[in-house]
């Protein structure tokens, strides 16, 4: 058992524990902070599995941008009364059953693959080789992804803009 193997199991434990804590927190800010910890663990895992560029992107985009967006929204809307943490038992039980069922089925399917039990040799894709590969093989998909991000920008602006005119705020002041 080499040092890399030990490192993998330590990081895997960190990720699973941090994610489980995030899922079960009542306070949403705590949940987001635990999830940031989980994404840092994922970034270390990516580095271990030979993807240093993706490790950097994971920290910059997931932990840096997406989670901060969640924090912005949580601090922007000040909930006076939090709704109950979980659904009532009648709806919670199917959720638990579906998640556990997915876990069992996927574990059985993964375990039945005999070629996956051999330890893999360590390898690393350098950022430059990865970038050349990405833009030579998948340039069209990269362009489509950039269009998708532009559409998201416009859509978020249109959704988030306050509508002037007969909105709820002005109607209240009129009479």
């Amino acid at each position: 058992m080499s040092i890399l193997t030990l490192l993998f199991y330590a990081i895997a434990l960190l990720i699973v524990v941090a994610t489980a804590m995030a899922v079960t927190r009542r306070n949403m800010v705590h949940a987001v902070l635990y999830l940031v910890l989980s994404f840092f663990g994922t970034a270390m895992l990516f580095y271990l599995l030979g993807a240093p560029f993706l490790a950097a992107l994971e920290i910059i985009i997931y932990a840096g941008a997406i989670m901060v967006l969640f924090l912005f929204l949580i601090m922007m809307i000040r909930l006076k009364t939090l709704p109950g943490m979980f659904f009532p038992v009648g709806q919670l039980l199917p959720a638990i059953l579906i998640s556990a069922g997915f876990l069992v089925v996927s574990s059985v399917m993964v375990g039945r693959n005999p070629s996956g039990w051999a330890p893999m040799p360590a390898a690393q894709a350098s950022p430059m080789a990865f970038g050349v590969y990405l833009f030579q093989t998948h340039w069209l998909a990269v362009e489509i992804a950039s269009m998708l991000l532009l559409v998201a920008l416009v859509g978020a602006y249109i959704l988030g803009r306050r509508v002037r005119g007969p909105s709820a705020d002005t109607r209240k002041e009129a009479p």
Partner: protein
Amino acid sequence: MIVPLNHILLLSGLLFSLGMFCTLARRNLIMMLLGIEIMLNAAAVGFVGASLHWQQMEGQAIVIFILAVAATEVSIGLAAILVVYRRTDSVDPDMDAALWEKGGSR
């Protein structure tokens, strides 16, 4: 030598089921969106592991697109949650339909 592929896939499946539980069971729109993020991240872990197993960069390329889709989904989703919150003063997915119809309590 590091771990076998199956251990990575099991970790990915465990993370995915945690995210699925979060999406299905939490009574809060923001936490449901967070669960979707966890599921996308779990898929990314699986792809990077498969990329190492077959020594191909295809899996790593897909993770880039997963990141783009996650960023899109979260920005649109949070804007939609903001609209729902302005109208109904609540982020409960189980809210009254009447509350939505009359444009909120204010």
